[in-house]
């Protein structure tokens, strides 16, 4: 959902798609040192979730939309043949 909002916020989609991608950088990992010898390796969930996330083409629905509401239902009414038709178009 955050992604959708981001997409709506950025007017230039081309920049979003082809612009430089923020790559998760391993060197920036904050690694605590234990006794000056060992490093605590903790998977950084927030940074690496994109690189190792589940490979799936499904697009999860936007939870901001509540399809129990009449106004949501009205917002897509004209997508159906039962809705309003444009000038110069006819059901025939």
């Amino acid at each position, binding site marked *: 959902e955050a992604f959708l909002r981001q997409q709506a916020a950025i007017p230039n989609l081309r920049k*979003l798609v082809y612009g430089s991608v923020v790559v998760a950088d391993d060197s920036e990992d904050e690694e605590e040192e234990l006794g000056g010898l060992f490093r605590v390796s903790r998977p950084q969930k927030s940074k690496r979730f994109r690189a190792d996330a589940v490979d799936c083409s499904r697009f999860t629905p936007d939870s901001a939309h509540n399809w129990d509401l009449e106004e949501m239902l009205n917002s897509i009414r004209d997508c159906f043949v039962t809705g309003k038709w444009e000038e110069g178009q006819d059901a025939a």
Partner: protein
Amino acid sequence: MASHGLDYDGCNFFRQRLVLSTLSGKRVRIKNIRSKDDNPGLRDFEASFIRLLDKVTNGSRIEINQTGTVLFYQPGLLYGGSVEHECNTQRSIGYYLEALLMLAPFMKTSLKVTLKGVTNDHIDPTVDVLKSTALPLMKQFGIDGEGFDLKVVKRGMAPGGGGEVVFICPTRRTMRPVQLTDPGKIKRIRGVAYSVRVSPQMANRIVDTARGVLNKFIPDIYIYTDHMKGANSGKSPGFGLTLVAETMNGSFLSAEMSSTPQGQGDPMLPEDLGKNCAQMLLEEVYRGGCVDSSNQSLALLLMTLGQQDVSKVLLGPLSPHTIEFLRHIRDFFQIMFKIQVQKPSEDERKGGDKVLMTCVGVGYSNINKTLK
């Protein structure tokens, strides 16, 4: 060594990288596959996918390091022919089939593949949805003809599997450029409510509630109930619903939902499933476009590989998977799409913003295809 082709990190978008590598002939190396995970390296389903890729190609070279965190892939020729594959049950057949749909038209000989495993689960697009959305989409690009079909022989739910699917696809030398800019209005809704190893009444209960939601919009709704019995019903119980909305101009929008696998998570009532699935279809209609959200990347790929002519397609909002796919297309084929946002006008009630994607095909021709 500079010539090991493209480098990527992480296991996400695994299939699209390998698919595009195969089509473009560029070598690819994927490193840091789950390198920070407690259980690092490739999973069984990814290994199974690589084996399937190896079966349909000829002369591919695949190297994986000992921990499975680095994969090197040098693609061979797409051969096709008759293939049988036992898909790993961690992911459903849809996972494998999505990649095959992208590869199949570019084989040397037409592909006839039998896939065994899980036909329906709640992660990937199921076989039923791909059958009713991806196949008509491919027909728009001129992939058609004798035997182009996807058949569910046996249904198998997660986690046990035991399903079987036959996919036959003819080859094409070139793709036809398309102009899909107006989806038209939705004229009918079709669907399949399936149930295996549970009471056949489940399917009817799903249909009732789904119809309740959709009847507010359109009267032409028909949802088939498909109850498979005996040997055709796989190893695990389950039920689910797929819904497809067909528009006047022949585009298809879909939604689907499956019951949670036995022993994982909370059980689901068929009534809730029917209602939620119907609302997901409304969400998909709200997004709109000529291609539904799970097939966006397939459409964009076929546009890229078209003749050197302009193709246009209207999509709903781009999914994260599609955005990454566009970046990969740029890496492998040096094609950038023109992306225009179309905002709906004030008085229109046609859902959210749409995106018009335009590109000129690379003029890819299938040199592998045998002449008869």
